[in-house]
Every structure is written in structure tokens, then in C-alpha cells.
């Protein structure tokens, strides 16, 4: 209840949550929402403008592309890929980054140096470039894309978790547990992990947003999953920008609004979970 109240007080957080709920709803119930089959080619209806322009037709809300496919239905279906890739790749990133951060911060010394040099070397390769190169030799399927985006974005977890563990391990209760001979793995998972959890939640939220953008960039470059995604609709619309501007415009708005919602929610979460950052 306290959370709901806090959410209602913060307008920004509320806007974020509403956008996220809408996005989730759209992705789950896509088949029920769409007025047309998103893959259905209908050359008789090709290049129809959005409904409010001259020549628009009532069931084609956002117009059609050059093959007569309904842009609105395609965008609705595209949300599924964004959602799936966004959430799952963040899980992959967390599964790599959190243990690395815990081990690096807890053990320190040589292990830490080695792991941190690996982190440094991944920072040196822009994550979109890393994803592109890995996809160059893996077939771009939904699974490989999730994996690739996860692998190229785990460093944020490793760095933040490590720096928090560095200060946490100096606390009395951790020292006490060590003196009592508690196993290292137990200290890391039971004493340290719960205390870095709020940071992990905040990074994850922002990471979902970044992953959605990365996925759409990859799709835009022709290395996305071979299904309808916001990036691929955009990429198809690019060749018809001068005549069918709506095909490339609306998926971009969908991406922007979704990412915006997640960023707003993430900002709000950071303020709520970490009162120290409040000015």
C-alpha cells in the first residue's frame, strides 16, 4: 500500500508505470487487439495513409506499408519482441554481471584485477558493435539475440555490485560472519546479495530500456530476429520515407514512448529505493 501511495504522489513515476502496464498489456494480448493479420499482404490496400489523412481507411488506423500490411497491427505485434528481448536479455546480463561483481568485490586481489580487466576490455568495445560482431557468426534468432544483448550489457551489474560489495564487506556483520567461519558462498548470497538488491533492480530497469533500443538497432541493421519487430518495420519503412512516411514514423514513436516510460519508472525507483540520492 505504501508503494502505491508513493507512486500516486510522484506523477513522473505514475506516467512510467502506466506506460509499462500498457506496453505489457499490448504485448500479451496482441492477437486480440490487432484489426488485421500483421503479415497479411494486400496489394489492393498498399501505401494507405493513416486514418486522419485523405485516402485513409477506417480499419487501417496508422496506414499500410507498400505491401498493404497494416502498420498498426505490425506495431502491436512488434511489442512482443521488444518485451521478450528487453526482459530476457536483462536476465542474461544479470546472471553474468551479478556473480562477477560479487566475486570481484568480495575476494579482491588478483581475482578482482583479472575480472576488472575483462570489464575494462568490454567497455573498450562499444556494446552495439560487440553485439553486431557476435551476431555476424551466430544466426540471428530470438534466442541468440537475447544472449548477445545480455552478453554485451552485463558490465553495469558487475561494476555497481562490486563497488557496493567493497563497502559492504567492511561492515560488522560481514566481518563477524567471516570470523565465525561462515562459508564465502553463503556470505555472498545471504549477506551481500540482499543488500545490493535495490541497486540491481534500478540497473535492471534502465537495462530493459537500453536492451529494447539495442534490439531495435540490430533489427534496423538487418541483424534482428526474423520476425516482426519495431526495428524491422522501421528498416522497411526507410526505403519509402519520402512517400509512406508513416511506416517509419510510428514504430519509432512506439520505441520512444516505451523506453521513456521505463526510464521514468527507473528514475522513480532509484529515488524510492535509495533515499541517499535524494537532494
Amino acid at each position, binding site marked *: 500500500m505504501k508503494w502505491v501511495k508513493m507512486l500516486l504522489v510522484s506523477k513522473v513515476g505514475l506516467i512510467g508505470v502506466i506506460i509499462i502496464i500498457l506496453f505489457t498489456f499490448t504485448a500479451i494480448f496482441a492477437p486480440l487487439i490487432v484489426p488485421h493479420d500483421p503479415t497479411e499482404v494486400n496489394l489492393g490496400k498498399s501505401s494507405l495513409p493513416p486514418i486522419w489523412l485523405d485516402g485513409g481507411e477506417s480499419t487501417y488506423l496508422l496506414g499500410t506499408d507498400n505491401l498493404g500490411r497494416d502498420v498498426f497491427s505490425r506495431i502491436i505485434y512488434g511489442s512482443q519482441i521488444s518485451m521478450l528481448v528487453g526482459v530476457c536479455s536483462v536476465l542474461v546480463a544479470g546472471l553474468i554481471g551479478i556473480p562477477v561483481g560479487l566475486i570481484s568485490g568480495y575476494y579482491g586481489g588478483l581475482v578482482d584485477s583479472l575480472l576488472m580487466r575483462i570489464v575494462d576490455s568490454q567497455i573498450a*568495445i*562499444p556494446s552495439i*558493435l560487440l553485439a553486431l560482431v557476435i551476431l555476424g557468426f551466430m544466426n540471428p534468432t530470438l534466442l541468440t539475440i537475447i544472449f548477445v544483448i545480455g552478453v554485451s550489457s552485463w558490465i553495469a551489474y558487475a561494476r555497481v555490485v562490486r563497488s557496493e560489495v567493497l563497502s559492504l564487506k567492511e561492515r560488522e556483520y560481514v566481518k563477524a560472519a567471516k570470523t565465525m567461519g561462515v562459508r564465502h558462498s553463503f556470505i555472498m548470497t545471504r549477506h551481500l546479495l540482499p543488500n545490493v538488491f535495490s541497486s540491481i533492480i534500478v540497473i535492471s530497469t534502465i537495462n530493459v530500456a537500453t536492451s529494447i533500443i539495442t534490439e531495435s538497432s540490430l533489427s534496423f541493421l538487418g541483424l534482428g530476429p526474423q520476425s516482426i519487430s519495431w526495428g524491422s518495420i522501421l528498416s522497411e519503412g526507410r526505403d519509402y520515407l519520402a512517400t509512406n512516411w508513416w511506416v517509419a514514423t510510428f514504430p519509432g514513436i512506439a520505441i520512444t514512448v516505451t523506453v521513456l516510460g521505463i526510464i521514468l519508472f527507473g528514475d522513480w525507483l532509484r529515488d524510492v529505493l535509495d533515499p541517499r540520492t535524494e537532494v
Partner: protein
Amino acid sequence: MTYIIRRLFQVIPVLIIVSFLVFLFVYLSGDPVALMLPEDASQAEIENMRKVLGLDKPFIVQYGIFLLNAVNGDFGQSFIYKQEALGIVLERLPATFELMIASIIVSTIIAIPLGVWSAIRRNTFVDLFISSSSILGKAMPNFWLGMMLVLLFSVTLQLLPVSGKGTIYHLILPAITAGTAMAAQLTRMLRSHMIEVLSQDYIRTARSKGLGSFVIIFKHALRNSMLPVITIIALQISTLVGGALITETVFSWPGLGQLIIQAIHARDMAVVQACVLVIAVFVIVVNLLADLLYRVVDPRIKYN
């Protein structure tokens, strides 16, 4: 001094790991021989080619050879361009640099006035508007922004060229596209830093001396915010390069981004390797310089 030397030594393992990653990508990408030889090549020819390329040797030996060659700037031949891979990459590098420098200029031109303005008009409508715009700038995928700019300025208003490179007009839209995300981040950072600086004692002293607020803001406060601005740009250089690579494909800008995406699609691995390594070395050097500069300019920072 010892710090600088230690920091330099840290770079070596990073370079080795990067080179290993780059090698690994190509190793995992499969046998390049099939792509290099004509389709009707006999088994003996394939075996021979593998020997010539050293592909019959164990993994670690292959990596050793790759590393040695890489240190000498030899990444092998591009089988598309029939030239030294590194040469092709270095030929494309200036175009990418040009785009990056232009986008840094654009982002600072946008961010400095906006960041300062929202800091001095803190918690007003102006501040709210600037803050929301900067979140929006972060949320937009840059390739989409690029396309929308083309739609508005090239297709509809016919003011600027759609794509390509040549005049300064060709540079405007790509620079805005690649610079917006950075501008958004700089604005937010500058705002919070300016707010902090403006509450410092020396600003109050300057005020009580009767100095005009213009002098205070631009001479005293902003100057102190420039260091974090430079640091943010340097630390974000990796993201900036990534953004530039994508922007290039939107505007057919003849830089590294276009080159590497073609190379990936064609599996021209020599070019991919050279590209990634050149970019990584560039990012490492910029980060190192920023780190050192930071410590030189601000001696309060501890050498840890």
C-alpha cells in the same frame, strides 16, 4: 608519476583480452576457407589453403600468431577489397572521427546553455521542460531520430542533403543524430553539477562582492563544471562511437560503421577484426587520457 606508469601497465592486459575476444569471434565464426576458394575447389586445395593460413594449428598457437601479426598491424587481406585490412580501416577512420567531433560539438552547444539555464531556473517550468526534453533525447533511438530529421529537413523542407559526405551541410543531420543522446546526458549532468557549484562558498563570496550574475555563472561556476563535462564525454566515448556507427548507416556516411556492417554481412573477417581492434584501442586511449587529464587538472583527486 607512479600512478601514470601503473595506469599504463593496466592497459596491457586490457589490450590482450580485447585481442583475444576479437580472435575468438573469428575463430567461432567458422572456417573462412570455404568463402575464399571457388566452390568447386578440391579437398586437397582446401587442405592446402588451411595450411597456408595456419588454420591446421592448435587454437592457442593460432591466437599467438594472430597477436604477433596484429602488433605489427597485419590483420591479413580483406577478401572483398583485396587489400590490407588495416589499410582499409584507417582509410575510413577520418570520416568517423569527423562525425564524432561534430557530434561532440553539437552536444556541447546544446547542453551547456540548457544545463546552465535549468540549473539557475531550478524547479521552474523551464527546468521541467528542459529535464523532460533531455529524458526524451535519451529515449529516442538515434537511427529513428536520423530518419525523422531526414524526413523533415531533406524530404519535406528540402534544406539539407539526404545522405552522403562532402559539404558541411552533409554533416549537420548526422552530427545532430549522433550527438543528441550525449547532449541529453550532458544537460542532466551539467544541471546537477551547476546546482552544486552555485551553492558553494566562493560563489556566495562573488555575489557579495557585487559581481553580476552573468560573470558568476559563466566565469566562476561554469568553468568549474567543464572538467566533469570533459570527463563525461571521454567516459561515454564508447557509447558515442556506437552511436556514430549506427548513424553512419542511416546517412550512408563513408566511415567505419558502414564498413564494418558490410564486412559483417559479407563475413570479411579480416576487416571486422581490424575495425574492432582499432576502435577498442581508440576508446582505451581516450579513457586513459581523460583519466590522466582529470588528475592533472584537479590535484585533489587521490591516486589510488
